[in-house]
């Protein structure tokens, strides 16, 4: 079987690249093994919230000029980065994902009610232009009784610091007893699936209206919006006050929803998805990948003209480690990483961790190398790349999207 392009990985970067190529008429295969960083997405995308020296970033596309030359945004060229960033909203809108955002970073709530910067916010994510903005003065915070992955107390404490008074309530829902009987099923996505049923959501909302006193804003855990973002508007109309969804512990409902919609867009554009399989190696001849092998297909190689490695970082298994080294486990590519285990980490858990910046070494066209030799028909994209301290910088989604678009264009120019 031969494709124009084979993409290894199934997260934000892989899907972005795949959609762009498939829409341009390329015969494209995505091989994805499992979880991606979208499962802990916070209902928004970040491009750059903080520079490596700690300076807070208001205008990310201006600030990228100050990044080091090893950063993926700089590697592919600052103008390219700006151009792809500017096209992102339209790109996702075409996939049915409506995003808000300007050239200035927005502010969104975290699960603990503290605010963080973001670049683009999903339709059902409450985001503010200024950190001081608020939607009301009296908040009613409601959760589902027995749901442990949302923390009304933390949220209330943060809001009260802003002068918003808070009242926390929990509502019992008999319909969730099925989930409760197996305690590890009481997760955000499972509840959200139950809440898709109109009747259940309506009885929940009715209960909210009953317990409401004089509050002028409603805060709910993000256990709505499994299929689409309409729940927010539905609930707002029914209760007659602004509603804010706050992200829960993983799995993230907006993240899983986004992943589903992107997969759908990819398939609609003619792409082929191969889920649950995993690339085990490649046949490399004359500095080019000829074919890749997968665990399900055994020795039967999948051929393509071009390949994209978008396998993510450690969580996505794009990077791996043992007690002597950091390595790229799929193709054995060269990595940028410290050889001393002691240098991988900080002594405080909450400090920036060096290992998050580790990744595959590439040239400026995102071609990785193996044993020092560049592979000319392979591109790396997203968090498998080295050079971005994505968590500290708030650049995870931005790097995923922008480097994927760049790789796709390089292939199309090919």
């Amino acid at each position: 079987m031969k494709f124009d392009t084979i993409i290894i990985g199934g997260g934000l970067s892989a899907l972005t690249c795949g959609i762009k190529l498939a829409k341009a008429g390329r015969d494209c295969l995505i091989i994805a093994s499992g979880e991606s960083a979208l499962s802990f997405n916070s209902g928004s995308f970040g491009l750059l919230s903080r520079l490596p020296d700690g300076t807070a970033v208001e205008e990310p596309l201006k600030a990228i000029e100050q990044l080091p030359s090893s950063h993926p945004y700089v590697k592919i060229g600052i103008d390219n980065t700006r151009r792809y960033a500017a096209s992102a909203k339209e790109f996702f809108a075409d996939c049915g994902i409506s995003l808000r955002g300007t050239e200035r970073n927005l502010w969104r709530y975290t699960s603990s009610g503290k605010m963080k910067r973001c670049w683009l916010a999903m339709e059902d994510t409450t985001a503010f232009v200024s950190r001081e903005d608020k939607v009301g003065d009296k908040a009613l915070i409601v959760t589902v009784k027995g749901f442990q992955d949302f923390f009304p107390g933390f949220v209330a404490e943060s809001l009260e610091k802003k002068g918003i008074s808070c009242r926390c309530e929990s509502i019992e829902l008999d319909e969730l007893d099925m989930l409760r009987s197996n305690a590890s099923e009481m997760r955000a996505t499972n509840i959200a699936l139950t809440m898709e049923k109109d009747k259940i959501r309506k009885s929940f909302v009715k209960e909210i209206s009953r317990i409401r006193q004089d509050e002028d804003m409603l805060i709910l855990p993000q256990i709505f919006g499994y299929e689409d973002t309409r729940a927010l508007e539905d609930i707002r109309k029914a209760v007659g006050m602004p509603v804010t969804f706050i992200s829960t512990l993983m799995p993230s409902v907006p993240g899983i929803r986004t992943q589903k919609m992107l997969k759908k867009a990819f398939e609609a554009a003619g792409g082929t998805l191969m889920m649950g399989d995993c690339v085990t190696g490649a046949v490399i001849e004359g500095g080019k990948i000829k074919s890749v092998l997968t665990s399900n297909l055994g020795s039967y190689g999948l051929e393509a003209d071009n390949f994209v490695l978008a396998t993510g970082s450690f969580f996505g298994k794009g990077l791996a480690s043992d007690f002597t080294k950091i390595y790229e486990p799929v193709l054995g590519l060269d990595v940028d990483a410290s050889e001393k285990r002691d240098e991988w980490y900080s002594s405080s858990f909450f400090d920036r961790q060096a290992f998050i910046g580790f990744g595959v070494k590439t040239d400026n066209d995102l071609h990785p190398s193996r044993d020092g030799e560049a592979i000319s028909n392979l591109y790396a994209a997203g968090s498998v790349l080295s050079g971005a301290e994505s968590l500290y910088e708030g650049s995870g989604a931005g790097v995923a999207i922008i480097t994927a678009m760049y790789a796709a264009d390089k292939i199309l120019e090919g």
Partner: protein
Amino acid sequence: MIPAQTTNDFDVIIIGGGITGTGTARDCALRGLRVLLVERDDIATGATGRNHGLLHSGARYAVKDSESAEECIRENTILRKIAAHCVEDTQGLFITLPEDEEIGYGLDYQKQFIDACTRAGIKATAMDPREAIAMEPSVNPALIGAVQVPDGSVDPFRLCSANLVDAKLHGAKVLTYHELVEIIREGDTVRGVRVRNKTTGQTSAYFAPVTVNAAGIWGHQVAEMAGVHVGMYPAKGALLIFAHRVNNVVINRCRKSADGDILVPGDTVSVIGTTSTKIPFEECDDVRVTPEEVDLMLREGSRLAPSLMTTRVLRAYAGVRPLVSADNDPTGRNISRGIVCLDHEKRDGLRGFITITGGKLMTYRLMAEMATDAVCEKLGVTVGCSTATTPLPGSESSDIKEISKKLWKMPTIAQKASVGRVGTRASQIKADDRFERSLVCECEQVSVAEVRSAMDNLDVHNLVDLRRRTRVGMGTCQGQLCACRAAGLLGKNRLCVKKEREDLASFMEERWKGLRPVAWGDALRGAELSAWEYSEVLGFDKEDEQ
């Protein structure tokens, strides 16, 4: 200065909430004494909670130290009865490897070992390698001989907690998070202690005719505060916990004791250890495991069970043994790991003060008995010791299946797990409400009900305490989800969210301390996920612009 208050609130004050202190508190309380126990942190924070959790048969000491061996097997037999819910009868193997032969620990030594065990009263049976592999499939298949002994595993947190629960049931007063600031002396007599409540900062004085120093390695400083010198030296022992139970039988090396030669299964994990390195006293409060120690444990451990090399390491940790330097030992005993019970009146002319130290987890009950005997002698109390025959709370019945059946028609996995943790006391965990059955910790199957019960009954002040009582956060995810959930529950009870935030942050720091030395492979993957969850999703960041 003569203290204003001279009446005694208590008969005895015990300093230290480790296994020795809580064991002594229980013994004293069972003999009818009015007991106060003071501990600067939580219970089991020192060496008690930082060892193998091995229920020694005594075989390890049989050849070189028959007295310790005899103590061990006696206490081993007693603990199986009185602490059934803390003990697991895993049995143990002492294996001989080909390389042992080259250094004089071949099968000839094995004979000598079996003879010594038999003399000490330890049942030791030689096995051929095939039998040993059948009994414990993870064992190094290169072995040339094995001896089966009655080793087991013991959960030190549970044991310590059960002793404390019983002491309290018998009237003892317990002050955790109370730091000793002064030993109140009047001339050559110790009158009591002054402690500072670490939560409120308030200082109070308590008085008793006898004070017992049971502070482990910190007993060195406690003695100094009383004006006497006990020559201790801190010996650090590093250990690694593996993410699953690699072995079901304890595996030891049949040769001279060395680093990393014991592998103990316990609950859902296995533990390899240990080392013995002298460290300065300043380091006792913050012992860390070095990369070299990790590598050493892995290398040595894989000689016991080769699969350890490729098994995920969950954490690295280290404890500090309170060794009493033999040259400085006024009792004249030359066994540095033996029990040392000092009556400072006889030794130093200081009345009303006793130090109990040395020893090991295995012999805590005997140490408590010796200390309590000394206390009673001073007080003129003649009631005898009953701890060798009175079961600890939770251990009144030892059959886990039977306890579960009595409590629930169809026990869930979490309910069975909680019987395993608290024994018969599981009946006090109320789970009538369907919301109480939800799991807080999925790795260790800990329910909301069990967490609530621990918070209400077991002196839980924070998340780290809760972990010691319930195993929340001890599993493979190392607190990624369960710590937040438990913080939510603690928060509801305490109504102080700010404190909860700090508590959660310090819990994760504590987990990271043990995770960092072994963060590679799946552990690094988990650490990355936790970092994203806490910073990006929860907004727990160092940088706070607010």
